[in-house]
């Protein structure tokens, strides 16, 4: 590019601290047009070293249309009147590197992706609720509390039918139904009998214990976003403890919100202040401190 400075630098950066008694660099011009520069400096180990550099200078000539060259010397005018030469940061900046990958059949590859996800979602349609028979997971059933779960029926029925062999050893090892080898007990039915009197169940992954004071809820994220992108963006403000990006079960794409935990509240507050309203992948992020649902 023509605007790159081609002026040969006269001072060598290595000579910056040459006030310790070294002779000035010795420059000799060789018969083949190259230059040999001999200089001295102190290396990292504190020893004096002699540096011999052989420099070959080549001049690259670029032919420019004379009209274009003349236009480069035009004085600035209008709002730019009197501005210094060179791009002004107020009007010109360099964007992020966006790779352009040209691929034959670009569209087909995308369409295939859509087809696969359609297949997957068809698979997901096969899900039936064991409580009400609807097309959702049993745990998400809206009638969970009102209708008796089918599991309860199965539970009580297990000892008797099947092949008529009640597996005495397993039943003996522990009294609770949980220890029955063959019968799977869904989490919401565990801990019955021993712990809480009715339906307390087992909570997933210690959800209650987690400290949410350093967690930010980020919403309005683009569907193309990945955890890695968020890590890059939010990692600038401090050490991250955890990133959770909600993804669609079928397509694997972002659902548009995420939780980001920092190690300190200060970092979280900083990130919240700086990134709320930040433009990220065509959308404007909404960042707030995560608030737990009151009834959870």
């Amino acid at each position, binding site marked *: *590019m*023509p*605007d790159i400075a081609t002026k040969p630098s006269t001072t060598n950066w290595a000579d910056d601290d040459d006030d310790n008694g070294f002779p000035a660099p010795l420059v000799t011009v060789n018969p083949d047009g190259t230059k040999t520069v001999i200089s001295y400096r102190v290396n990292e180990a504190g020893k004096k070293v002699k540096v011999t550099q052989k420099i070959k200078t080549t001049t690259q000539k670029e032919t420019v*249309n004379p*009209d*274009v060259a003349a*236009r*480069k010397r*035009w004085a*600035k*005018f*209008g*709002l*730019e*009147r009197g*501005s210094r*030469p*060179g*791009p*002004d940061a*107020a*009007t*010109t*900046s*360099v*964007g*992020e*590197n*966006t*790779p*352009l*990958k*040209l*691929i*034959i*059949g*670009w*569209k087909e590859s995308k369409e295939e992706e859509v087809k696969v996800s359609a297949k997957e979602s068809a698979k997901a349609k096969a899900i039936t609720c064991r409580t009400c028979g609807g097309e959702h997971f049993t745990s998400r059933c809206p009638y969970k509390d009102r209708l008796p779960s089918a599991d309860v029926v199965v539970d009580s029925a297990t000892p008797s039918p099947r092949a008529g062999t009640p597996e005495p050893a397993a039943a003996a090892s522990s009294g609770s139904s949980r220890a029955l080898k063959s019968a799977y007990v869904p989490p919401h039915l565990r801990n019955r009998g021993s712990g809480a009197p009715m339906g307390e169940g087992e909570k997933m992954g210690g959800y209650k214990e987690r400290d949410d004071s350093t967690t930010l809820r980020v919403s309005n994220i*683009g*569907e*193309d976003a990945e955890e890695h992108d968020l890590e890059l963006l939010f990692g600038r403000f401090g050490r991250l403890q955890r990133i959770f990006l909600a993804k669609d079960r079928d397509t694997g794409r972002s659902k*548009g919100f995420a939780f980001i935990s920092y190690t300190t509240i200060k970092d979280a507050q900083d990130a919240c202040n700086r990134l709320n309203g930040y*433009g990220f*992948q*065509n*959308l404007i992020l909404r960042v707030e401190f995560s608030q737990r649902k009151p009834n959870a």
Partner: protein
Amino acid sequence: MRPILLKGHERPLTKLKYNREGDLLFTTARDKIVNVYYSHNGERLGTYMGHQGALWDVDVDPTSTLLVTGAADNTVKLWEVSTGRCLQTWEFNTAVKVSTFNEDADRLLVVTEARMGFQGTIHVYPFVIDLEAKQATEPILTITSPENKFTKAGFSYLSKYIIAGHADGSVSQYDGKTGELLKNVPVHDKEITDLQFAPDMTYFITTSKDKTARILDTKNLKIMKTYTADAPLNTGAITPKKDFIILGGGQDAKDVTTTTSRQGKFEARFYHKIFEDEIGRLKGHFGPLNHIVVHPAGTGFASGGEDGYVRVHHFDKSYYDFLYDVERMRPEN
């Protein structure tokens, strides 16, 4: 590719124009100023100030001496490119949508909008490339289209025809000297948003809100190629050197806030000109792309968006290396 971002405008971009050598890039937006930048490094050379309304079009003569701009303040202004001085003003009854030269800039073509009882009109003025000359103020030719308003228009090769795009998606061919309507061909289902000629002007590309772009040949108005996109298109450009088409668009600005980024589709789309396949997309803009122009030497392109930014791209090696297998097998000659 690392684009250069130009932010000289405060409103959505409407038109970009490279001069013949491609070293200068002129931009207009819905604010009142025209900017000119050096295209190689994005340095702003100056601004042309004097219009009182949104600018719709800009064109520069082949010697980069004179600049002509058309605006919604019902005027066309003539500027000295090197100083930003306004030399002359033409006044019209309605907003000016197009102001463009023919190949040699001995004709100036102006399209005014149909509004307030006035019909959409193409005005043609004689023109001379001379800073001192007083340009003609009386048109030598006017063409009206009472029931079908013009959206875009331009002179074909040798100024033989005037090609005009209409709001109903059809394209008309007028005789360049007499203004007689020679042909009118339905091309698109919706309004034509852009009409750009190939470098030799024997064919041109039209884009439309009906999500397609088409290449027509100038002489017969025959549809040669069709490119289908998944969003309304605002602009399309033909690349010299490589057989590509760059299309830009995205859904209407008024619908943007109600949808997610994926539905926005604010990307520059690359199609192969011959095979009509989409071969890639380039992200960047924050809103629909309003105009795309390709550097006359085919070394880069610039896009202007509804977001008020201009992005100037210089193609890297992978762009030039891209070939179809059949192209690779083509014998060298």
